[in-house]
């Protein structure tokens, strides 16, 4: 933008009074970057050129980025220590919650397994490999049970005799009571 001397004076006055906007200061920088500048503004021009030159000052250190990258690592915590187990941004409390959740799942699975085992016990394993031997052994066992049942039945018939006698006595007593 071209400025006449009046505009320039006004803008410079604002600049010295620290009242210019960044845009207005940019106009001044552009104005003073051009040659030639009025003799009366030589000092001001050198000041603006100084600002522009300073803007281009850089570190001039090719190793800076490499050195910095060595010192910062993705797993580095805010206090500068290295995480052995990089779990992102998870804190101790969050990890404890996850561990508690896993524990509950494992415990529940164990108890359910125990209950299922009780409800459906395993079938006994075969004790004989030869079916004939197994048949004979089964027959023997059934005969033994049968004999035991027969014995028990005989004993039970004796109990019946006692019961019958008891009933007769009870009947006699009842008859006596009614006669009285």
């Amino acid at each position, binding site marked *: 933008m071209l400025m006449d001397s009046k505009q320039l004076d006004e803008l410079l006055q604002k600049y010295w009074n620290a009242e210019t906007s960044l845009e207005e200061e940019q106009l001044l920088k552009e104005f003073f970057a051009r040659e030639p500048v009025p003799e009366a503004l030589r000092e001001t021009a050198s000041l603006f050129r100084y600002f522009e030159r*300073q*803007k281009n000052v850089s570190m001039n250190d090719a190793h800076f980025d490499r050195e910095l990258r060595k010192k910062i690592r993705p797993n580095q915590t805010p206090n500068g220590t290295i995480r052995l187990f990089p779990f992102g941004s998870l804190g101790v409390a969050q990890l404890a919650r996850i561990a508690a959740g896993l524990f509950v799942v494992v415990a529940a699975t164990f108890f359910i397994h125990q209950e299922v085992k009780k409800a459906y016990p395993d079938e006994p394993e075969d004790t004989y490999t030869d079916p004939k031997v197994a048949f004979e052994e089964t027959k023997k066992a059934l005969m033994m049970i049968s004999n035991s049942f027969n014995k028990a039945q005989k004993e039970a018939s004796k109990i019946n005799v006692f019961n019958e006698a008891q009933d007769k006595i009870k009947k006699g007593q009842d008859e006596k009571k009614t006669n009285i």
Partner: protein
Amino acid sequence: MNLEHFESRVLPVKNKLFRFAFRMLGSSEEAKDVVQEALIKVWNGREQMAGIENMEAWCMRITKNLSLDRLRSMQRKQTDSLEGVDVKQEALSPHDRTEIQENMQRIDELMANLPDKQRQVMHLRDIEGHSYNEIGEILEIDLSQVKVYLFRARNAVRERLIKLNAYGL
């Protein structure tokens, strides 16, 4: 903030941080150390920086605080030349280049002799192009103070520059 984000948003401001640290410390080596320390600090504190809107101003503020710490430990200010620092040279005749170099050197000294706050405000405004609000944020001072420091700094440099050119004082 991940490493990629750090490299794309934070690392590119290193030269700006360097210039500011250099302006405060007057030593390029000290300034480099401060910038490295500031960037490591930004990285280590990345989890707390999620809500920061102006990352550049935040980095400048860290740099300012670290430079002040270093100044205190140094107990004295050094004024290095810009040797070892890359300044782009324009295509000028040797005579013009010498004259400009001398002028630049003079202004450098004038700015170095300003009181600390004035020097910092003038650098942030006239070289780095920060807004008044950003300068207040970086230096932790209010807006009216920013303008007062800037007014004083500009006028002090102007007066001394006029005297130097007029009488060689």
